[in-house]
């Protein structure tokens, strides 16, 4: 085992962490930064509960070695809200009732945000396929599909000319 120091940007702030090279990103976020929105569940990259954005791309934080984020920009679910103001996707998930236990919700929120960044007006098929790598054992899937559509409308409304 070997220790090293990594420096990266976490939710907009420059940070450093002392890590072992075998530590994954989720455990470093939890242990060193008290950010528990990204969570380990399946441990195999099958469920999406551990989703974290690294340089703008979603990764499975339970498989992604923390050493790899040295010099990178890291964003977690905790960065979606601006102070007390929720993002349109967060608001839409509440309006649609798109979660039950909430354990998988951060992963869905990040993936839905990334989906809408790439495709502002996704149809049912696009939503289903884009989010098929995230699992929800409470099976709030119909509500999640609905939430993504609500979020798409909210984001369009927010960017429409006054």
């Amino acid at each position, binding site marked *: 085992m070997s220790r090293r120091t990594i420096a990266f940007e976490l939710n907009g702030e420059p940070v450093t962490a002392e890590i*072992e090279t*075998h*530590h994954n990103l989720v455990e470093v976020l*939890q*242990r060193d930064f008290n*950010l*528990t*929105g*990204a*969570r*380990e*569940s*399946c*441990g*195999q990259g*099958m*469920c999406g*509960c551990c989703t974290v954005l690294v340089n703008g791309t979603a990764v499975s934080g339970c498989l992604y070695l923390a050493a790899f984020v040295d010099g990178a920009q890291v964003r*977690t*679910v*905790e960065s*979606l*809200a601006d102070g007390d103001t*929720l993002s349109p996707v*967060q608001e839409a*998930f*509440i*309006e649609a*009732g798109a*979660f*039950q*236990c*909430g*354990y*998988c*919700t*951060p992963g869905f*929120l990040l993936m839905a945000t990334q989906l809408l960044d790439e495709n502002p007006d996704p149809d049912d098929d696009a*939503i*289903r*396929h884009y*989010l*098929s*790598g*995230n*699992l*929800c*054992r*409470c*099976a*709030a*899937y*119909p*509500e*999640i*599909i609905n939430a993504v559509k609500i979020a798409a409308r909210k984001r369009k409304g927010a960017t429409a000319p006054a």
Partner: protein
Amino acid sequence: MTEARHEVGSQVGRSLPRIEARTKVTGRAEYTHTMQLAGMLHAKLFRSTVAHGRIKSIDTSAAQRMPGVHRVITSRDIRRVIPEPYYGPAFHDQPILAIDKVHYVGEPVAAVLAADPHVAEAAAALIVAEYDELPAVFDEIEAAKNKVLVHDELRPAGTFADLKHLKGRKGTNTALDFKLRRGDVEHAFTTAARVFEHTFRTQKVLHAALEPFASIADYRDSGVTIISASQGPSFVRTEIARLLGWPENRVRIKVPYLGGGFGGKLYIKLEAIATALSMIVRRPVKVALTMEEQFYTITKHPSTFRIKTGVDKSGRITGRKCEVYWNGGAYADIGPRVTQKSGFTASGPYDIDNVWIDSYALYTNLPPAGALRGFGIPQLVWAYERHTDIMARELRLDPLEFRRRNILREGRPQATGTIARDIKLEAALDRVAARLRWNEALERGAGPLRRGRGLAIAMKAVISPTTSVANVNIAADGSIILSCGTVDMGQGSDTAMTQIVGEVLNVPAESVRVTPRDTDITPYDMGTLGSRSLFHMGHAVRLAAEEAREKLKALAREVGEPEGSNAPISDLFRKKYGMQAGNIIGTGTYKPDYVPPDPASGATPNATPFWMCAAAGAEVEVDTETGAVRVIRLVNVVDCGRPLNPKIVETQISGAALMQLGFTMFEKMQIDGGQVTNASLADYKIPGMLDVPRGMESEAVAAHQSNGPYGAKGVGETATFCVSPAIGNAIEDACGVRLTELPLNAEAVLRALRSGTDQPLGDAP
């Protein structure tokens, strides 16, 4: 007198978003699995590799030598601090770590403690155990023959009257045999126009909560605090206190949000081992499992159900005999309650004069089985509703009409003799039939793609008798805190309970706070299980709020406010105490009436305070060249009384149905010689986005539960009941294959399609 901003009747019945919604969407909700305490050690478990064997030796020396390992623990160390380290809700049969023998592959044998969980995990892999292997039994029917015995002697917990007679019993794997005898079933068979007999089986599946099991114990001389992902903190407190020989007030159980439960996180799971380890090392200890380890912890009962039915010339069912064998695995957990509580509804939601039920809880050398969203009912419904459809086909009766002819109606006795009240069963069936346009012909498809449709109905009694207690605490500024032990694991109970408080005290539900579950503060509750909470805890919360309201009225009188005054609550406290001071605390306790079944006949005039009723319909398309089944429509209609939060009820219906869709179509723990061979989400698939049928319809029929809080009753499990047989019946309707065993995957369908043809499939590898 209270702030009258809302009309009475405005709080229950509204689709209030979950009160914890912001916490969950900002990633701030706390779960045991992600929590840490200062100075905490992590424990990793070393598990048995054999299904049944005597432990010859456990060599922990290499693990103990690994740098960073704090200590390696076996049952010898555990017994120094807890001499009788056996736990369980029905039987005290499960050791904290294996003692002398192992009873299934995956049973915890030793634990490694280290500050770094990676070190603990690596060290656990260095432990070597040797076993004298013993013959093992895996199948429930084989287990019933008692040729291979899982346990030398039965150890009932003494909690349940109907298990006491099993104390010390030897030579058996049967942990409970429940009997129900009504009328003369043999006479019914001899006089019937037709008699049908089938055997159905269900497979072993897993809760797979996305937050795996986790507990953290912090043992001090003065007491132990346990943070745990538990659906039943009161039970955990009682059981840990018993193990330690302590009064309950020295055991404190704190429960944050649960990342799913589904019946898995009940009773003792990791709380006992975390406590024992913390006792030994005098530091906080966290035991957090991986997804793989969940497969070795608790599962759903596989079952075999032999069902025999006599039908007269008019299509009326005259007699039914049910033999149900529940595969409970190596430790009983709550299996004996499943055997009895589900057992007595094994004859289905039908009006049958002559019924014979035998329901057996069996030990086998498999990972233990317990409650999973339905407490045995989905296994039973799979059998009795496939059986119903097969009979209808043979009798050339429409499956809807055959059900209507025999359905249990309001005011008629269920098999126990209990008169069925507030059952909107037929109404639910009618709604499913209407949604499916059952009276119109179905487009049957063309070529290899064949379409079909199916129906099913079911009924479940809530587990009884059980108790719930709640406190409503009004502060001097008029704000309200509710303490209740119901654990919100996603079902929305906190939201519903605040709606009840808001309704009684005439305040907006969202202004009411719910204390986090903490047995030092939160009063007793039997457990968040079996769809009991909204009814039982809902009543307790209502009673607590009503008592607080009466105390407020008394306070108003005392300080000289006229009857019906609109003075703010804060003014009443100020007048009484001269400043913002004081509290009003209302307490409510609820336990419904219940009469235990007669041991010989299973008869009781009061089996349950309420019945959950469900109906489902499915339309499927079968690819007859591959066996693949596509569920085109899945309609679930339930009777849950009056929905107190219609949106949350809808998500409970669709969520339960989709979970059962996984258990129906593909989920199966593959087991080879007792070893689970697909213990990961890579190999054990649970439903994802792409599995959701395009036509997913959920409905609660108009209903009012006359003894329920505001007309409500439970709904968490109801929509699981009928999914499997509705789809199984639709597959038979589509392509004629008669499946009797879950799951209904492409292989099962193709095998059935090819059997009896000139192209049968070879044996499975």
